[in-house]
């Protein structure tokens, strides 16, 4: 297997995720927590995030459709999403959550709806990109998967 080519692809993909603002430094922090005792830590945490956040997005959508809207509950759900998104370094989603919270504070229903649509798009895009990234990482295997190689 051409590991050097794979490594280049992985490096390039990760750089692109950072350059395009999908990820921030927190993702590097997660990778630093990965070692021989926990070789798939980052992928597991990211998978956990997408599982929980999909459910949260559904809850947010349902909360938006209720009448009258409970902006306090909406804010609380988005706050939760913001917390776990920022914990995995999902920068764009974190920023959109801040916008969403501002709309909640203003009781701006249309603003909230727009933010939700953006969050869903960002969520789907990041999920797809990270799935591809981890697929590439799996190809190089645990032996080659030294954290600092990808910085």
């Amino acid at each position, binding site marked *: 297997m051409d590991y050097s080519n794979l490594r280049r692809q992985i490096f390039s993909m990760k750089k692109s995720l950072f350059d395009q603002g999908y990820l921030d430094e927190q993702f590097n922090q997660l990778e630093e*927590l990965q070692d021989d005792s926990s070789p798939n830590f980052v992928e597991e945490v990211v998978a956990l995030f997408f599982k*929980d956040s999909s459910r949260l997005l559904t809850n947010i959508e349902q909360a938006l459709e209720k009448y009258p809207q409970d902006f306090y509950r909406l804010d609380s759900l988005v706050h939760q999403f913001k917390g776990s998104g920022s914990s995995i370094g999902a920068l764009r989603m974190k920023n959109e959550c801040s916008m969403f919270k501002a709309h909640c504070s203003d009781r701006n229903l249309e603003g909230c709806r727009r933010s939700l649509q953006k969050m869903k798009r960002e969520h789907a895009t990041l999920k797809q990109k990270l799935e591809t990234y981890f697929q590439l990482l799996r190809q190089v295997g645990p032996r080659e998967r030294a954290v600092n190689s990808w910085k």
Partner: protein
Amino acid sequence: MASKMQGSATKALVVEDIKVDCVILLRMLQKLNCKTTVAHNGKEAVDLFLEGKTFDIVFFDKDMPLMTGPEAVTKIRSMGGTEVKMVGVSADFGGMEAFMHAGADMFVPKPMKLETLDSMLQEVISKKNMSV
């Protein structure tokens, strides 16, 4: 990273209902040689103290079911838990006032950096070593 006390590991309690955040903080604490316990909300944390469990440092998320972080801090302080270092954690600075008013020692916005956590733990270790 010198996060080991003379003779025993630092005992940390993580009070957090969001799985992702809990898993990450636990991993960071384990990397820093801490012995970790988890409570999923403020009430579980209070119950641990009522059972007589002791910790060197406790990390509280703000919004949790049954009992929030600030509520748990207030309760544990009123129960005599004055020595344990209590750290409030939340997704932005909105929770800082509530935590500090409740009696927390400090507030850190999420996500917490490993270096920040390490220096907090070193402070706890120094304090404990001085009192031995």
